[in-house]
């Protein structure tokens, strides 16, 4: 049983992972075809996870309603919206027998109406909120606490002044460009370099079976 539960999943994951890696690195058409097949399989399995997600949402929010938690009313709204969109989606997925060329599923006018008039405005609202939240975060960030904050504040003020100098001081836009193109970009590339190496080594650890949250 231990082999079935622990060794087999790990061995399978490592073998497939190594194969896909080799297929990506070596330009051999056969390897590439099989590697793509494995990736497609993973995509199909991942699609089933969305169904699990749906069940999880139902279970969590039905629990809220049953236990009458503080947020149970929001759970009712969420479940009603979920069922409504699901029903519209399923009904519109079935094209009418009369005209097969009519759009169905997500491209059906009813689903498009929901996206355009409900989803898009809500997302745009949250997007707009980010501008104010950025301001609040900047205020918190620029409060003088130590030398680091002081440097941050001075550099930010210089970049802001360069952005809105209105041609009064031509040196400010040049200084802004230099700050953004040299020290800021160098720092960003340094972080990205570290992240890339970290990603490679995490991948190696996964392929070696050292880190495997999927089994004990």
């Amino acid at each position, binding site marked *: 049983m231990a082999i079935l539960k622990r060794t087999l999943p790990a061995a399978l994951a490592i073998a497939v992972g190594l194969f896909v890696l080799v297929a*990506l*690195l*070596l*330009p051999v058409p056969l390897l590439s075809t099989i590697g793509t097949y494995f990736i497609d399989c*993973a*995509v199909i399995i*991942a699609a089933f*996870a*969305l169904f*699990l*997600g749906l069940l*999880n*949402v139902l*279970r*969590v929010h039905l*629990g809220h309603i049953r236990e009458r938690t*503080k*947020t149970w009313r*929001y759970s009712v709204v969420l479940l009603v919206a979920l069922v409504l969109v699901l029903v519209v989606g399923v009904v519109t997925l079935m094209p009418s027998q009369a005209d097969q060329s009519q759009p169905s599923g997500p491209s059906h006018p009813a689903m498009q109406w929901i996206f355009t008039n409900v989803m898009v405005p809500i*997302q745009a609202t*949250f*997007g707009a*909120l*980010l501008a104010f*939240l*950025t301001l*609040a*975060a*900047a205020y*918190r*960030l620029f409060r003088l606490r130590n030398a680091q904050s002081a440097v941050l504040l001075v550099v930010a003020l210089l970049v802001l002044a360069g952005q809105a100098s209105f041609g009064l001081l031509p040196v400010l836009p040049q200084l802004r460009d230099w700050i953004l193109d040299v020290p800021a970009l160098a*720092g*960003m590339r340094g*972080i*990205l*370099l*570290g*992240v890339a*190496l*970290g*990603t*490679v*080594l*995490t*991948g*190696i*650890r*996964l392929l*070696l079976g*050292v*880190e495997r*949250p*999927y089994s*004990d």
Partner: protein
Amino acid sequence: MDDIGLSTGTVALMLLLLILPVLFFLTSRVRAGKSGTLRQIPGLEDLPNSVGRSAETGQPLHVSVGVGGVGGLSTAETWTGLTLLTQLADEATSCDTPLIVTVSDPTVLPIAQDILRRASARHGNSDGYDPTQVRFIAPNPMAYAAGVSGMLEREPLTGSVMVGSFGDEYLLMGQTGVRCGVHQVIGTADPVTLAQVYASADDTLVGEEIFAVGAYTRRLPVQIGSLLAEDWARWVVAAAVVLLAIWKILTRA
């Protein structure tokens, strides 16, 4: 890469073949006790306190593994979040502290549930596992952030540990956490999001530091060896960048 006449795949293969022997060599040194000292990362050292605070107050700790999933570009970051969740689940189960885990990508949901289930089983408390401790909020990052913000505001939480892939939507959760006085430990690899994280988190894991989570929490020789190999590879890449720049300047002249 075309500048030096090598394809990206070839460079990746070379990097891999270069790193592997170094990784094995450094791991063997760590096993032999010859090296293995890790530098201090305040964000990681404060993690046990997050569980401790939660245990003292009896209020849950929120854990997020980001908006990425398993199988996409952000797999490594998500995996790091899951590694951290494994550690936090063990600590939380041992001191009977509830965790609330939120996920955005459905591929992470069964893995996160399995991590909590196994942590309960390891501590002989299989009945204590509740699958609704892991909540799938929404696959859309902005909708996920809105859901988590609502949760931070309405539910009594002592802290929030979020390690994984985050974008601009992070700000919504981060600033809500600040407003509600939730102690936040945040780690992500995206440099643009890091600026927002730095402004709102109590402890920050900057860029590559998130990949050190396994080495700090489990301290296996191969994990420590991998961190040392990463440091070594960084020096090699930096030297290569400088040498290539000099070579370019000389050939142009």
